[in-house]
């Protein structure tokens, strides 16, 4: 009974995704970036549609984190253009601040604020950046804490929570800003194995709501279940870009094959 129901919702979601997929929300156009002499992104072209779920994988140092950090301008690119939600990223600080309120990000090391309680962590952005009244922000925060299944931890400090709980708080913190896009930078890499699942479950649920997601991860099973597209990067290039079934069963490039052999 429940299974058919989830299947149905999945179908609806897929329809929604395909219906919405004509709207472009992120566009990379010939983006190049260097760290001093090191050419970290080479001629990146990428289009992400609204509601799409993309998994980015590749060996370490391939530029995948840098790629998604360019989207909310935590990293600056030197050449080419990036357009997010219709706004071109440039030196204009107002644009950057605006885009950061629209793009949520979850980090490998959570980056929660250790001097604030969980609830304060969640309401800081809405109150100060979105100018939301405090009571509304708190009600909203509790709603998202319930969604990540830890409402009882609201008054604790981040240091008192397990890694998995902290990462779920970090996801809730981003969701409180009501973002259009969610970026995940290796969200499970710093977690103990038994905590990975609770975080992935939350992410799968989030994917089911139709959120645009870009996830850098080594969790290939997760990629198989939720991704619309998998992107493989190596040495600053996007080497291969494909639907997950094709990508895993039938990789086109030699480098992709080699990488998959190593991690699967």
């Amino acid at each position, binding site marked *: 009974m429940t299974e058919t129901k989830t299947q149905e919702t999945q179908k609806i979601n897929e329809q929604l995704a395909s219906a919405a997929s004509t709207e472009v929300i992120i566009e990379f156009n010939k983006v190049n970036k260097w760290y001093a002499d090191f050419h970290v992104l080479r001629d990146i072209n990428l289009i992400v549609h609204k509601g799409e779920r993309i998994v980015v994988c590749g060996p370490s140092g391939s530029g995948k984190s840098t790629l998604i950090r360019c989207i*909310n301008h935590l990293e600056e690119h030197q050449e080419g253009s990036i357009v997010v939600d219709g706004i071109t990223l440039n030196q204009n600080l107002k644009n950057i*601040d605006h885009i950061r309120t629209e793009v949520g990000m979850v980090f490998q090391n959570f980056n929660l*604020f*250790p*001097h604030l309680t969980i609830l304060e962590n969640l309401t*800081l*952005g809405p109150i100060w*950046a979105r100018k939301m009244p405090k009571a509304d922000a708190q009600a909203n925060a509790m709603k998202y804490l319930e969604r990540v299944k830890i409402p009882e931890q609201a008054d604790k*400090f981040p240091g008192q929570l397990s890694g998995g709980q902290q990462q779920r708080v970090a996801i809730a913190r*981003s969701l409180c800003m009501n973002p259009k896009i969610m970026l995940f930078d290796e969200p499970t890499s710093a977690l103990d194995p038994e905590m990975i699942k609770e975080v992935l479950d939350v992410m799968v649920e989030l994917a089911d709501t139709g959120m645009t997601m870009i996830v850098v991860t080594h969790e290939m099973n997760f990629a198989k279940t939720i991704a619309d597209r998998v992107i493989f990067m190596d040495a600053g290039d996007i080497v291969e870009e494909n639907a997950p079934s094709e990508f895993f069963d039938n990789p086109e490039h030699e480098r992709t094959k080699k990488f998959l052999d190593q991690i699967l």
Partner: protein
Amino acid sequence: MTIIKASPTPALPAPLSETSVIGWMQKNLFSSVFNGLLTIAALYIVYMVVKGMWVWGIADAVWVADSRRECFSINPDGACWAGIFAWVDNIFYGRYPREELWRVNLGILSLFIWMIPLWLPRVKAKISIGLTTVFLYPFLAGYLFSGGDKGIFMQIMLTAAIVCLAGNTIHATIGVFTGRSLPEFLSSLFGKKNVHEKTQRNIFLGIIALSFVSIYVWQMSWSLGGVSWTKWGGLFLTFVVSGIGIASALPLGIILALGRRSKLQVARVLCTSFIELFRSVPLITVLFMATTMFPLFMPEGFVLNRLVQVIIAVCLFNACYMAETVRGGLQTIPRGQFEGAHTVGLGYWQTMGLVIMPQALKHMIPNIVGNFISLLKDTTLVSIIGLFDVLNMLRAIGKDRTWLGLHIEPLVFGALLFFLLCFVMSKYSRHLEEKLSTNQNN
């Protein structure tokens, strides 16, 4: 074969060396013959020093006498504390007119009254109380200490300070007993419970305005006689210089530190060179520059009083040291905290004020208080350029005709005084650290 125990091994009693006094002494003081001898020698030295101090400072000391000669005739081997007692007003207040001492006392007392709410539980809006202390209290104290004719600006600021002091005190009293804030209390007085925030604020502002006007009218009816800064002295002057230094060094230091880390080239170069310039010269040089060189560069007829010059010099000098302390604290904050703040949409000042500074300041408390302590001690340098701070007052005792040659006792007294002040500060910083680290385990 493996042995599996069904129950956990029972705990053994701790060895003697961990629990008894004798065991501890054996382990730490007499672990070998040589260490035993060292311990005995050290104890003997400590005994001799303490005994000497006891005999000179307390057992043989003279507490009541009218002159140093009388001290000598009573007991030539002991300390002559009578001289300190005779000079106690000078040590604390310098040459401040004796009939006006209440003004100094009232000024210092009102600082305490102003700041007590910061330590009380259940009092709301502590940040505004702290800010008013920094921005309004100086006007109240300034007028109490120096008096004279009130200009229109002084009248306004003085009134604001008095209103604020009264408001703070009432607010804190209400807070301690009911846990409510002053605006909430006022609107409930008018029988309006659960009123809208805006009405509450309007009632509050109305009453503040009313009391402002009435106090303004009242303060026009009196004024205090002027006391020239040249009469200020003693511990009072030390407190004025170091108090202003402490209150301004931290905010200035934070601004300089942020400037030094700024992405704006101009701000960075300016702040860096300012910090490096002041840090690379000794305070006494800065003081001489401020009092002798600085007036040379000023247009003719431009006279700043020496005390103000000295205070500005002390503030700038300490702000630079504070800036480096703050910069050190900022460097302990991982980059992820900045990124975390940016991703929830906070701008630069919000990130700094809400996320970075609260964490960095907590790490910096020992260093900040260390800076304050050295600032307090450094203010004794103003005695070299002729201000009669506590050190200069203490040295003046030995030049007084009745107490001629009384040099050691005043300096011992000064040492005790400074030790007490610095020790209290350092203990308080330990307490702050513990208090702040108990509510977050990270």
